[in-house]
């Protein structure tokens, strides 16, 4: 489904601020799988998602999606295949426009935008029907600007928008991180349901190891721009939050193991 071959991205190359955000990352995502990406802050998770979504072009490497080489596609073109929900609940919708107008744009994601009236009564009925399933009472507020809603409500709608047309790949970047715990739980639940019902292929960055364990069927751990661990299939079924913490620990320990430690162990380790 999604194949990433050795992509690299360096910000501010050849300066003191050089950040090697991705270092030859390769990853293959199977159709219908739900993969969680975890990792310390700044480990390159968002950068990886951005590279897939086309927010910028990686310095090197290849990405194919559904058999098509998309590395040279601009972001807006990839949107026909990729649905996205961002960490910032305000990033996925146009605040001054109504709920209906926002959704109607998502109903033609990656398609032509004809010169026909967008929000008609019949379209509104269709929208209301699906918005009702969110059980947030938003179906009665379709004509309100979406900016008047809470972060949780907006994120739920953004999720609905991203999946209205079934995307080949759904990208979720810490989409519950900025929400209060209750909304986060609700959006989390919603994510699970939509992905299951629509049999979506999804890639989710999350800061919550519990969420990774509960929702996904594969967990990829990143550190310093590299994938350091990949729990899948049987391994994923067995893995618990504490195991992930240990893996984090181990990765960090490895980091602390520098030449001075090597010298220390040479003297004392027998």
């Amino acid at each position, binding site marked *: 489904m999604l194949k990433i071959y050795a992509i690299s991205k360096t910000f501010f190359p050849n300066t003191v601020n050089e950040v090697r955000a991705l270092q030859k990352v390769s990853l293959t995502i199977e159709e219908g799988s739900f993969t969680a990406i975890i990792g310390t802050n700044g480990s390159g998770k968002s950068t990886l998602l951005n590279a897939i979504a086309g927010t910028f072009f990686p310095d090197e490497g290849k990405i194919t999606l559904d058999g098509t080489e998309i590395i040279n596609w601009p972001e807006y073109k990839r949107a026909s295949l990729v649905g996205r929900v961002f960490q910032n609940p305000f990033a996925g919708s146009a605040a001054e426009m109504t709920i209906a107008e926002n959704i109607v744009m998502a109903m033609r994601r990656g398609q032509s935008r004809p010169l026909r009236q967008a929000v008609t009564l019949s379209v509104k009925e269709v929208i209301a029907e699906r918005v009702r399933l969110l059980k947030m009472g938003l179906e009665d507020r379709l004509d309100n600007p979406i900016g008047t809603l809470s972060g949780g409500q907006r994120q739920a709608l953004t999720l609905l928008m991203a999946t209205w047309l079934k995307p080949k790949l759904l990208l979720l970047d810490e989409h519950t991180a900025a929400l209060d715990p209750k909304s986060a739980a609700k959006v989390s639940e919603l994510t699970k349901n939509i992905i299951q019902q629509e049999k979506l292929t999804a890639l989710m960055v999350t800061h919550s190891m519990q969420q990774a364990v509960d929702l996904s069927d594969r967990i990829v751990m990143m550190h310093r721009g590299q994938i350091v661990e990949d729990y899948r299939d049987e391994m994923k079924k067995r893995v618990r939050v504490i195991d992930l913490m240990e893996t984090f620990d181990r990765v960090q320990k490895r980091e602390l*193991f520098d030449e001075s430690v090597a010298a220390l*162990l040479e003297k*004392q380790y027998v």
Partner: protein
Amino acid sequence: MLLTQEQRGKYLVIAANGRLDATWADYFADTCLDHIRNGHHNLILDAQELSFLSSAGIRSLLRINKEILSVKGSFLIVNSAPFVAKTIEMTGFKQWLSEQLPEEISTQKTNQLHSEVEKTETYVLNPSAMLTLSVVANWQPWQSLTPDKTYKLSFPNSVFALGIGSASDNFDEAKLSFGEFIAVGSHVIFQPPEVKSRPDYLIAEMDYIPEMIVIQALCCQGEMSHLFRFSPEERILSFTISEIIDLVFSTTKSNSVAFVILAEVDGLVGATLIQSPGQKSEKDIMPFPEIREWLSFCGDRLFAGHQALVFGIATRKESDVKHSLLRPLPANPEISGHIHAAVFPFQPLQNGKIDLIKNVQKFLNGPPPEALLHLIDDDRPIVGLGQSSFIRGACWCAPLQNKEGLV
């Protein structure tokens, strides 16, 4: 709920004011368990101001009682109001109730809590006991391995050992799984050399005696001569491993010793194999960063609040026991040693003179060990983590006698 404590001789009297119900049960139990951890094994609950006791409260009392039984302490409830007394009686725990304070209780009250073990207490187990040290296998990093450098070691009751070995019974399998081990009287704990795996253990049962293929082993045979207990005092909050070793030297009056420590951890510093040395090709030195594929270093002082089972061998400069498996401790270069530690979740130890093997058994019957480390004294300037240290516990020790005249 308000809890006030008062030390009266060996007893700790806890006055509870309020309702012992579901809301407060955990707080109450945790406070009491903390006291037990800190060495207060004789608790008296003054229930005069206790207005209510629910089943959740009873459950918390049970938790406390269980912990106290495991360290052979005592638990009493005094001054309880009729309702509370009735609840306790009807749930079948009448034995906890007492009309008055125990007769031997001290009339002297202090609000300053101190444990029953105030300073180190020493018990002589067998003044003439000695351990015979032998080095049965002598692999040193990072020599290549051949079957003739290995040794099949079995662990009867009288053996204390540490080193590197595998539980597999033939060399071809074993060479993939050599890792650190520690053996205390037919209880062997070993760390399979893989980043993700937990330590495993072998215990003698019926006719079974644990056996390992070892590539490196310091093996001591015999029995322990002394036991001493240590516990924090006013100024000393923890004991570093080199301080404990000094105590061992002075207790045994010997320049070469072996010791087993069972103690609550303040922090451990050490390293563990994460790949079996059997997989290594011909190369005696291991450069950085390749060494990171073979050894994992703790990176931080770990396992505070856990309980560690430590076995170590230490010699002073003057001693005639010398071996390249014994390395100088940077904290005190006069001393050379080799120490391994297995880490368990916390379980309280009984106060006073306790039996080594019984307590090791108790630990291995509880939750499984979490780690096994070769202890390191990290003396790097500024970033150094220092030595491993312990809060309170027991140390069994004996002088060494040199079997093969190791030099």
